[in-house]
C-alpha cells in the first residue's frame, strides 16, 4: 500500500509537460552520446548540468539520469553495426553483435539489445524501488566513522579493479584526495592552496576536472591516429527477434539483469564489469560455448541486459548514502548539491518527490528508449556516418562552452585543459583515472568525516575498528588492497582487470 501511494506520487511528479519533455530530452541525448564514440555519458552529463540550473531539481535529475541509462542503449548500436563500442560497457557486445551483423542479422541483434535493455531496466528500477528505502533506514545509524570507512572501501574497490599496478592506482587515489583538499576548509574556514584564486575557494571544480580527464583527454588520444570505421551499409531490417531468438535469450536476459543490478550497487565501473561477467556466465553454462564469438544472440542479450540493469543499481548508494559509485553518479551528486539537496540517508524521506519522481521517470524512459531505438535506428546509423575529423572539434567545443558557462571563468577552462593534459599523459604512463576522480569527489567528505570521527574519539584512531560496521568496511578495504599478496583474491583481480581495461568510470 505504501509503495503504491509512492508510485502514484512519482507518477504525479512525472506526468507534467516539463518533466516529460526533459525525460525525453535526457534519453535522446543519452542515445546520441552512446552512439557517438569518444563522448561518454560522464562528459555529456557534465555538459548539460549547467543548463539545468534554472529548472527544479527533480526535473534536472530526471534528465541527467535519462542520459546515463540512455547511453547504455546507444552504445550497443555502434558495437553491433561498426564493431566500435560507443561506450566501454558495450565492448563485449562487439564480439557476437558485430558477427551477427556480418551474417545479415543486424536487425535481431539490435532488437534483442533494445528489448533486453528494456526488460533489464525495468527489473533494476523495481529493485531500486524495493531495496533503496530499507537500506536508507539502515544507513541512518551511520556516524562519521562508518562514513569514513565506507568511503575508504569505495576507493579500495576501485583500486582493486584498477588494471596494472595497485601501487599506481593507490597513488592516483591519494593524489585525488590531496587535490580535494584545495579550497576552503569546511570546518575551520581556512583557505588552502588557493593562492588567492577566487575560483579555487570552493575547491577544484568537479566538472572542469571530469571534462578534462574524460572529454579532452579522450579526444586528444583519438586524434593521434585516424580511426577507421567500417559501417555495415546494408539496410537494417527485421528488428523483431523471432521465437527461437526469444527462447534462447530469455533466461540470459533475466540472469544478466539480476547480475547487473547487484554488481551495480558496488562502487566501480559496474556496467562494464557486469556485461563481462554476464558474458562469462552465459558462456560457462551454455551447451554450445563454441558458438560464442561467432554471432550467437545469447552473447548480445545477456551483457546488454546486465549493463543496463547496472545503471539502476548504481543509483542505490547515491539515494541511500549519498555516495557516488562512479563518476556519472558523482556528477549527479554534484547536481544534488548545486540544487541545495543534501544527499544522505535522509534523502528519500525528506524529498520523496525527487526519489519517486526519478524512479517513475526511469520506467517511462525505458519505454521511450525502446521507441527511440527501434524505429529510429536509421537515424542513429546516419549520425554514425559523421566522420571523426569533423566530429572532434565539435566535441571539444561542447567541452569548452560547458565549462565556461558554469561560472563564466577562463580559469576553470584553463583548469579543464590542464586536467586534459594530465589525463592524456597519465594514461600514457599507465595510471588509472577512476580512483583519481572518485577521490576528488569524495575526498572532502572523507576528510570531514575523518576529522569529526577523530574529534569524537578524542584522537584515538581505534574508533574505526571499535565500531562493528566500520570495522567490517576497514577489513574489506585492507583485504582488497593487500590482494596481490593473497593468491585467491589476486587471481580474481587478474580476471576482473582484463575485463575493465580502458573503462570510463
Amino acid at each position, binding site marked *: 500500500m505504501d509503495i503504491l501511494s509512492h508510485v502514484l506520487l512519482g507518477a504525479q511528479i512525472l506526468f507534467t509537460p516539463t518533466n516529460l519533455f526533459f525525460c525525453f530530452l535526457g534519453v535522446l541525448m543519452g542515445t546520441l552520446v552512446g552512439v557517438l564514440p569518444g563522448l561518454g555519458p560522464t562528459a555529456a552529463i557534465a555538459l548539460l548540468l*549547467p*543548463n539545468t540550473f534554472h529548472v527544479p531539481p527533480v526535473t534536472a535529475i530526471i534528465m541527467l539520469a535519462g542520459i546515463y541509462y540512455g547511453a547504455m542503449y546507444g552504445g550497443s548500436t555502434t558495437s553491433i553495426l561498426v564493431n566500435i563500442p560507443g561506450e566501454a560497457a558495450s565492448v563485449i557486445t562487439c564480439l557476437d553483435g558485430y558477427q551477427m551483423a556480418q551474417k545479415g542479422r543486424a536487425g535481431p541483434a539490435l532488437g534483442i539489445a533494445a528489448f533486453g535493455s528494456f526488460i533489464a531496466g525495468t527489473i533494476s528500477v523495481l529493485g531500486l524501488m524495493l531495496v533503496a528505502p530499507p537500506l536508507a533506514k539502515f544507513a541512518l545509524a551511520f556516524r562519521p566513522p562508518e562514513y569514513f570507512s565506507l568511503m575508504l572501501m569505495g576507493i579500495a574497490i576501485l583500486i582493486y579493479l584498477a588494471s*596494472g*599496478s595497485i*601501487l*599506481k592506482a*593507490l*597513488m592516483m587515489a*591519494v*593524489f585525488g*584526495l*590531496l587535490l580535494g*583538499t584545495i579550497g576552503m*576548509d569546511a*570546518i*575551520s574556514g*581556512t583557505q*588552502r*592552496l588557493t593562492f588567492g584564486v577566487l575560483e579555487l575557494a570552493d575547491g577544484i571544480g568537479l566538472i572542469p576536472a571530469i571534462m578534462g580527464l574524460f572529454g*579532452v583527454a579522450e*579526444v*586528444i588520444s583519438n*586524434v*593521434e*591516429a*585516424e580511426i577507421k570505421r567500417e559501417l555495415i551499409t546494408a539496410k537494417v531490417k527485421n528488428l523483431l527477434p523471432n521465437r527461437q531468438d526469444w527462447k534462447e535469450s530469455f533466461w540470459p536476459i533475466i540472469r544478466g539483469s539480476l547480475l547487473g543490478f547487484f554488481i551495480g550497487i558496488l562502487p566501480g565501473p559496474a556496467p562494464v564489469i557486469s556485461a563481462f561477467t554476464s558474458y562469462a556466465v552465459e558462456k560457462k553454462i551454455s551447451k554450445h560455448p563454441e558458438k560464442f564469438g561467432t554471432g550467437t544472440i545469447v552473447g548480445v542479450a545477456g551483457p546488454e541486459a546486465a549493463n543496463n540493469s547496472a545503471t539502476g543499481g548504481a543509483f542505490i548508494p547515491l539515494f541511500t548514502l549519498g555516495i557516488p559509485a562512479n563518476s556519472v553518479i558523482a556528477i549527479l551528486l554534484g547536481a544534488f548539491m548545486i540544487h541545495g539537496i543534501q544527499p544522505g540517508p535522509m534523502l528519500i524521506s525528506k524529498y520523496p518527490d525527487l526519489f519517486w519522481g526519478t524512479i517513475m521517470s526511469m520506467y517511462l524512459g525505458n519505454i521511450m528508449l525502446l521507441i527511440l531505438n527501434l524505429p529510429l535506428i536509421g537515424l542513429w546509423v546516419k549520425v554514425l556516418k559523421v566522420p*571523426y*575529423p*569533423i566530429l*572532434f*572539434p*565539435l566535441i*571539444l*567545443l561542447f567541452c*569548452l*562552452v560547458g565549462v*565556461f*558557462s558554469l561560472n*563564466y571563468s*577562463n580559469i576553470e*577552462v*584553463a583548469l579543464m*585543459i590542464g586536467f*586534459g*593534459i594530465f589525463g*592524456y599523459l597519465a594514461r*600514457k*604512463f*599507465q*595510471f588509472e583515472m577512476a580512483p583519481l576522480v572518485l577521490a576528488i569527489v569524495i575526498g572532502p567528505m572523507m*576528510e570531514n568525516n*575523518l*576529522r569529526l570521527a*577523530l*574529534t569524537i574519539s*578524542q*584522537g*584515538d*584512531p581505534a574508533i574505526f575498528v571499535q565500531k562493528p560496521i566500520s570495522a567490517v568496511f576497514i577489513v574489506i578495504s585492507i583485504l582488497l588492497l593487500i590482494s596481490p599478496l593473497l593468491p585467491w583474491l589476486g587471481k580474481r583481480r587478474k580476471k576482473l582487470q582484463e575485463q575493465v581495461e580502458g573503462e570510463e568510470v
Partner: protein
Amino acid sequence: MDKAKRYNRISAVFFLGVGIFFSLYARSVEIGTWNEPGPGFLPFWGGIVLAAMSMGLLLLTFWGRLPSITQPFFPQSDSWKRVLATFLALIAYNLMLSPLGFTLVTFLFVAFLVRFVFPQSWTRTLVVAVLSSLAARLLFVDFLETQLPRGFFGF
C-alpha cells in the same frame, strides 16, 4: 633501459614532488593534532603518504616487477603534431574568447582543427566551421541564453 622502467621513474619523481609540495604547504596552515586535526592535517599526511608511495614505485623500478609497456608513446610518427595542435587550439580558444567574442573564435577554432588536424578540403572546412559556429551561437546564446562574451565586434 626498458620503457616501463623509464615511465615509472618519471612518474615517481613527479609524484614525489607533488607529495613533498603538499606536506610543506600544509605547514603554513594549521596541521593540528590527532585529537584535533586542523585544515593542514590531510594535506600533510596525504603528502607524506604520496611521497612514500612514489619512493616505493622508484625502488620497484630497480628491484621489483612491474607490468611492461609495449606500445610506443605515439602510435604514428606524426601523432605529436596533431596532439600539440589540438592542445594549442584549446589554449588559444580560452585566451581569445573574451577579446574576439564567442561566434568568431568558435569559427576560427573549428576551421583550424578541421583543416589542419586531419586535413579536409577548404570547402568542407568552411562549410563545417560556418555552420557549427552559427548553430552553436543559436543554441547557446539565443536558445539557452548562456552569457558568452561578444568581443569587440559585438556579435
